[in-house]
């Protein structure tokens, strides 16, 4: 009867191996997905960081007395840029993601104050290059929000796959650790509806 026992052991072993291969492949796919989603955020954030110096330069010409607000924007932008750079090497690391989220929230706050300033200077608001920059900024902001949702979805899917049974038994062995979402805790305070101007 050792034949039967061997057969059973063999079949069990086979199923186990196949299961592990399946789990590994699924986790790798999940990792690819959230890394790809982060790359999308990365592009838009960098683009936004590139836009801000131009914006500040343009604003300076009209609103010299708002140096404090403008400096705060530049400072927040630099903090966010370095947070992004350090997060780039360890995508999904909960600490890095949190740092980036906080820096982004700070930048959004500073930009919100800049918006108030712009409203106070009709000339600045009417400036065509300022108008263009502001529009591009809000467009990239929307894109960031959208990509961030995609990233968080992908992270959630990955974390669920990682923590579900039986993957949870092997995930550590394969080197898959928990991945952090990118949360930007910033309340925009009731955004106005986009204006139609055709």
């Amino acid at each position: 009867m050792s034949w039967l026992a061997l057969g059973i052991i063999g079949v069990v072993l086979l199923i186990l191996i196949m299961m592990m291969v399946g789990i590994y492949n699924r986790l790798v796919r999940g990792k690819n997905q959230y890394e790809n989603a982060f790359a999308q955020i990365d592009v838009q954030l960098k683009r936004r960081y590139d836009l801000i110096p131009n914006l500040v330069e343009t604003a300076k010409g009209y609103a010299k007395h708002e140096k404090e607000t403008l400096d705060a924007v530049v400072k927040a932008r630099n903090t966010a840029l370095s947070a992004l750079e350090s997060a780039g090497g360890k995508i999904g690391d909960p600490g890095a993601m949190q740092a980036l989220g906080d820096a982004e929230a700070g930048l959004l706050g500073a930009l919100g104050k800049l918006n108030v300033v712009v409203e106070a200077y009709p000339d600045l608001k009417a400036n065509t290059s300022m108008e263009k920059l502001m529009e591009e900024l809000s467009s990239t902001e929307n894109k960031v929000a959208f990509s961030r949702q995609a990233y968080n979805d992908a992270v959630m899917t990955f974390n669920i796959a990682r923590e579900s049974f039986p993957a949870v038994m092997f995930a550590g062995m394969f080197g898959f650790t928990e991945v952090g979402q990118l949360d930007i805790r910033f309340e925009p305070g009731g955004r106005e509806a986009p204006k139609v101007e055709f």
Partner: protein
Amino acid sequence: MAMNFFEHQEKARRSTGRLVILFALAVGAIIALLYFFFAYFLVFKSAGESSSNTDGYREIGLWQPMTLIYVVGGTLLCSGLACLIKIVSLSDGGSAVAEMVGAVRVNPATSDPQERKYINVVEEMAIASGVPVPAIYIMQDEININAFAAGYTVQDAAVAVTRGCIDSLNRDELQGVVAHEFSHILNGDMSLNIRLIGVLAGILFIAIIGRILLEVGARSGGGRRGSRNKEGGGGAGALLAIGLALFLVGYIGYFFGSLIKAAVSRQREFLADASAVQFTRNPGGIGGALRQIGGYADGELETKRASEISHMCFSSTISGFFSFATHPPLPERISRIENTPLEAIGPGGATLGAPLAAGVAGLAGGTIRTSAADVIASTGSVTKAGVEKAIHIVASLPAGLAEAAQHPLSASALVYLLILPENKKERRKLARTGLPGILGQDELGELYRLEKLMPGLAAHARLPLLEMCAPALRNLTSDQAREFTGRIERIVKLDNEVDLREFCYITMIEFCLYGNGRLRRKNKKRYKNFDEMAGDFSCVLSVLATAGHSDPGQRTLSFEMARSLLAGRVKLRYETEGIPVGELRTSIGRLARSSVRIREALLSAASHCVLADDTIEVEEAELLRALAHAVGVPVPLFLADTDID
């Protein structure tokens, strides 16, 4: 005469059928070998036992039904399971395969000029051949020149090249390589490859089990030698013997399987090379790329999974024991490309003639003279003029719109805009009144921003723009995709008119979003009989006839053209009354899941319907192309010389 898309698909299907027979024979041989091994093994075993056991001699002959059942069951179960797993994992779409071998998506907003060039070349080739832009991948760590295409169908394909490819090739050479990969996509080589990989994986699995048993047997045999346990020693010996048998038989099967795979693959490579020259009309491009490879050792990939995708690649990926050239030798390929006249290149005596440029003799005023036969003949092929026109279209797109196609948010806003009416006034009215209740604020803002650019978009550039949105839309997460399709549904219902273009766009977008593989699994019903499709033909062709002509007499005439073409196959009924929105949608969905023959008949009838007056308006041409998209047939750009300056 050049083969068209349908013939290529048909041929791929037939050669798949032959392969299945070959592999069935191989599996049969494996089973027979294993059976005889086990039968002999048991005879010897019983002989050994009976010599020590004098009173009851049991006769065991070579005919052992139970052993046969075990061997057949075991082999089919194991190799079938492994084969199935492989096929399912590969048919998730081109992206899954590309990611499996470690390729990464090219960042759509990349500032790297080489990557930019690569993206542009792929987009242009996709637009020229009439397929949605595939997912674009790059293997950053590979410095050799190589490339591959993956995916089950034209709608969920992926193209990948190595870093070396974009760095060391010039634009023409890169275009040649990309055209080569597109030929694999258009000729149906990829689904053939996936099945090949699956079956080989099944056979290889037998060998892998054998190797595991060998290792286990060797270890347990070694461990128990000291204890002189006869039973255990016998078990280990049996394990070793079985393992060796499985290992040998599995590898012999794999050996022959690989031979077949390599032979098939070499044929397809010659075809792809020839098609690349045909698409670009520039032997220097692909020829130069091959010469460049010749300068390197060869195109070996470092990735461990290289053997799985070797025959999808542009040049051979692996060398060593048990691997056969999946690609013809470079000099032969180069000489075929450069020495032989275009018309005479092709595998197995099949000649690829000059492609029929659909309607190169165009008329002024946005109409194109072409014939329905040209439409069918041009499916799945590309012309140099087509590529040039695609380059022209991409270059003349309003900058903001081309850029918007690269990001999921702005790409979805763009799709909403393209689904809205073409007429500026109607579109703006709907956007103002209908959309705020449907879209979120982010999307609304993006849509209003893009709307201002829409007047700069030429009619013939609408579908290409939609094709360019495909890679960005594939980046939507499943939640986002669900919301997106839900919103499209509601936008379509805003105006209570039946619009064929809208539905073709939607079907195409759904294919892009969910990949053909997943859609196929969700809805398994396939249609092969013309009889059951009569209602769907009538529905789509009625809408087409009504949409293309305002005069009732013209409408009837064009419908009659389609009817006469399909006479004997489908009984058409012209629905002059309005067709419910849902019915058109269902019909297009059913047609998209019907056999190649049915889709060819549909496209042919649709071309006759549109071309009843021998000229084709730009709008009609785009409508026809959109319909072709929806049913998964690549129809290249229609050309009017007025468009190409």
